[in-house]
């Protein structure tokens, strides 16, 4: 059976989709011969079947990565940087293809979402390439006849990525890893395997030697778990749910490999009485509904000060209605795509029902379904807004990962901070107020890794990113990512200390 399948995407793009596993710069079938289907969430139709990696395949990939490290570690940083730059050019050259594949496989609107993702992959490759020849150690004076130096060394790493921004999330992992000189075994989500496979061919074209970059498509319980527990991997990096992150961390204890996790969130957006309410409404709308709310830093809890509560809600309702046009992902006007799968669709629906049962008031949502303004097929859920929520409601405490927001009220700053911190999560928080002093004081008290002052969800790749509490371990992006993908060795140089 061929390892490529000719496909035509809904927007007419025709291409050869790789369907194998990418190990040692070669496409191979899975050792078991098993395949799995990936579904287009806009149509509920299968796109294609790809080979499924099991534990044996992961072992082969890890073997290849381990072998490649023996020579790859001696290649100078500037050469690695040049290959990354070349790869970034190839990504831009293939922007339309990659964005189309992404839109079809993951349900992200092509024009307003998917294209931006692919551009960000190219940009992040360039940023990280700039680090490849700057991985310095230190010299530490000790005494007249003794000193120490430190050097950084790359790791053989396993990376497990989610389905909400398939190639973009993969790039948050492989870019710093490649810059640090790591060799990689990377597993896509079983819901969105396609774009990473197309990308693998570009990695080979950019000149990365065999075994440096290996791709296995597959499921968490088998391939993912094997990566987490593999005795020959120095590190596992994971983005996904907190529950799965906990499993990964436990499996990693097999050989005490390094672990970094980027997990869930229920990020609170706080609107104070001196906020620019119009801007707050716009940002809150963007930060919640972008990517159909399937976003770890979505501001899925909004806390509004009582004196501006009604006014904010009116503005927010207008913004949501105006900005989020549900439709076919290849329709230029569509800004809200489907959610990723039947499983997620059902789960989100259950949360919506729970919200109503627990007494939250729904001011936007089902009326669109009632008006038959959603497409016939596809896992489309309209933007759903609950207000007058209470702290102990399920929809306030649990991560829904869909276009559903829970709005509550507060009176004092102290209460706002208390409510905001009342969560097992701590990924992000947003603060809207025109008073700089107030905002700084509040921000200092919020238990979250990224605080956005008067904006939401406008990350920059140069700024460290990672959660407090159960939202994760370690910081990605910025210079901090280097610490995730190197380990430091200290050398004690005795130049004359005799005992």
């Amino acid at each position, binding site marked *: 059976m061929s390892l490529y399948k000719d496909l035509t995407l809904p927007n007419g793009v025709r291409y050869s989709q790789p369907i194998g596993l990418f190990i040692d710069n070669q496409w191979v079938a899975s050792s078991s011969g098993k395949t799995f289907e990936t579904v287009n969430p806009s149509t509920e139709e299968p796109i294609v079947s790809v080979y499924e990696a099991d534990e044996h395949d992961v072992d082969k990939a890890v073997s290849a990565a381990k072998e490649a490290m023996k020579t790859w570690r001696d290649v100078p940083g500037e050469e690695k940087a040049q290959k990354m730059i070349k790869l970034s050019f190839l990504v831009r050259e293939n922007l339309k293809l990659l964005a189309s594949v992404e839109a079809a496989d993951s349900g992200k609107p092509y024009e307003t979402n998917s294209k931006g993702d692919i551009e960000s992959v190219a940009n992040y490759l360039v940023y990280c390439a700039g680090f490849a020849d700057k991985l310095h150690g230190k010299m530490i004076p000790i005494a007249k006849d003794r*000193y120490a130096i430190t050097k950084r060394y790359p790791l053989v790493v396993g990376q497990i990525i989610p389905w909400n921004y398939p190639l973009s999330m993969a790039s948050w992992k492989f870019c710093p890893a490649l810059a640090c000189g790591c060799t990689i075994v990377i597993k896509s989500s079983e819901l969105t395997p396609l774009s990473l496979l197309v990308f693998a061919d570009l990695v080979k074209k950019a000149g990365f030697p065999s075994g440096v970059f290996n791709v296995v498509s597959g499921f968490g319980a088998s391939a993912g778990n094997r990566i987490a527990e593999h005795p020959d991997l120095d590190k596992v990096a994971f983005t996904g749910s907190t529950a799965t992150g906990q499993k990964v961390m436990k499996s990693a204890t097999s050989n005490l490999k390094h672990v970094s996790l980027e997990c869930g969130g229920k990020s609170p957006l706080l609107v104070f009485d001196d906020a620019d309410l119009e801007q707050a409404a716009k940002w809150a709308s963007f930060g919640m509904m972008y990517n159909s709310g399937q976003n770890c830093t979505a501001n899925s809890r909004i806390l509004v000060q009582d004196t501006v509560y009604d006014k904010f809600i009116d503005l927010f309702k207008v913004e949501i209605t105006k900005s989020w046009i549900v439709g076919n992902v290849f329709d230029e006007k569509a800004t809200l795509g489907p959610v990723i799968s039947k499983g997620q669709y059902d789960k989100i629906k259950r949360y919506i029902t729970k919200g109503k049962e627990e007494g939250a008031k729904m001011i936007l949502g089902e009326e669109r379904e009632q008006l038959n303004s959603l497409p016939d097929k596809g896992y489309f859920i309209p933007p759903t807004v609950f207000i007058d929520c209470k702290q102990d409601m399920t929809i306030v405490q649990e991560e829904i990962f869909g276009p559903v927001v829970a709005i509550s009220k507060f009176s004092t*700053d102290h209460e706002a901070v208390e409510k905001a911190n009342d969560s097992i999560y701590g990924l992000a928080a947003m603060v809207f107020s025109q008073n700089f002093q107030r905002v700084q004081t509040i921000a200092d008290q919020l238990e979250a890794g990224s605080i956005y002052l008067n904006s939401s969800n406008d990350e920059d790749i140069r700024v460290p990113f990672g959660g407090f509490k159960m939202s994760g371990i370690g910081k990605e992006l910025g210079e901090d990512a280097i610490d995730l993908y190197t380990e430091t060795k200290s050398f004690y140089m005795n130049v004359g200390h005799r005992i």
Partner: protein
Amino acid sequence: MLRFTTTKAFSAARAVTKPGMIRCYSQYPLSKTITLPTGESYEQPTGLFINNQFVPGKQHKTFEVLNPSTEEVICQVHEARAEDVDLAVDAAEKAFEGDWSLGDPAVRGRALTNLADLMEAHKDTLIAIESLDNGKTLANATGDVALVVNYLRYCGGYADKLDGKVVNTGSDYLNIVKREPLGVCGQIIPWNFPLLMWSWKVGPALASGNTVVLKTAESTPLSALYAANLAKEAGIPAGVLNIVSGFGKITGEAISTHPRIRKVAFTGSTRTGKHIMAAAAQSNVKKVTLELGGKSANIVFNDCDVKKTVENLVTGIFYNSGEVCCAGSRIFIQDGVYNEVLAEFKAAAEAVKVGNPFDPSNYQGAQTSQQQVDKILGFVDIGKKEGATLITGGERSGDKGYFIKPTLFADVTPKMKIWTDEIFGPFGVIAKFKTVDEAIALANDSEYGLAAGIHTLNLNTAKYVADRIKAGTVWINTYNDFHNAVPFGGYKQSGIGREMGESAFDNYTQVKAIRIKIDESGNN
């Protein structure tokens, strides 16, 4: 205490009109077709590069550019006078107020990496221009251009990584310490590595958001003008990079005294460096970094690998015809291996092939000018008079072109001028030593402190000596061995500041501390 001065005896030679320094008033075209010794032709820009355009000088003055291998005129270029420098500063100031400095630094990074790619694409032409204009061999020029491309990429990768700090002094303050560019930077570069020195200046200055007015050496203006077109193509906006060809006394002086230039960076002789520093202070306290002369010690211990060491000694003093600021020009050999190393070194020096830089079999090309040749031969006479022993060389090679035979003197002592003065040619002086401490004392017996070489297989000796040598770069079991991530610069009168590595960016940024009071009392 040792004094060093440039040889007063040769100030007379400088007063004579030298061929090639002829200056004219002319309507010289802004571009000239030049045919290279390889047979290929290219378009050489000759104007001043201001605001992304080539323009004549306001006074329409031009000067000749000579080929040091043939002593023939290549072309003329336009000369920048003080009023032209003013125009360049105007352009640079305007560009500094724009998006280049205040906008997203990643844009600057991309422009520099684009420029690196373009220079790589044009490398054959750049290499040929460099050999033609400077006299260095094609092999040397090839190495130079490769280093330029690498360094521009290195700086491009840095542009969006010049982070500041947040200093914690308690919750009632937010202290942000940020790094900002300086403004319009004046840069004055030498003739020994024209394009490479250009990149050491332009790379970090542009990456950190400054704008530049750069003066090339009057004997080697060509490659920077060719590269200016590539800078424009790379997307570097008008006014960010301005190239003014000219002479030190006029163009250089205009830069170092300019009231609106906020920094001057200079590579050249210590004497000129002092003058520039004084002018910078007197005018407007512009920031100064200097990369000056050297008389670097290359120290050979008894337990060295003789064969590899001799190769490093040759590289140290004959590479680039000895026209290297950090040349290993004082060679100290421990008594246990003195005779053996001296004999091998003499043989190796005599085996160095000197001649036409476009002939790939030559190791050493031409000295850059008649003035340099006269200076070097003058030192040969002085060395003989001072009683040092001429081991080899000491005369011109051939009768056309500025070629000099690799020259070595032994039995040189610290009071001799050939020990104290920088000669800047293929001219090494040798002395013997007994103990490690004696070697250190001899090496440090200089007002210069640019580099040093240590040749030994004993790490303890190497570290002991390296710790005590007063020089900015210490090479162990290698020499003239650069990498763009490793800082380079001088102790003592060899300079101020470091180029390359992270350090270079300190030269082109200044720190602003923003201390914000947080009043926590007003919140409910």
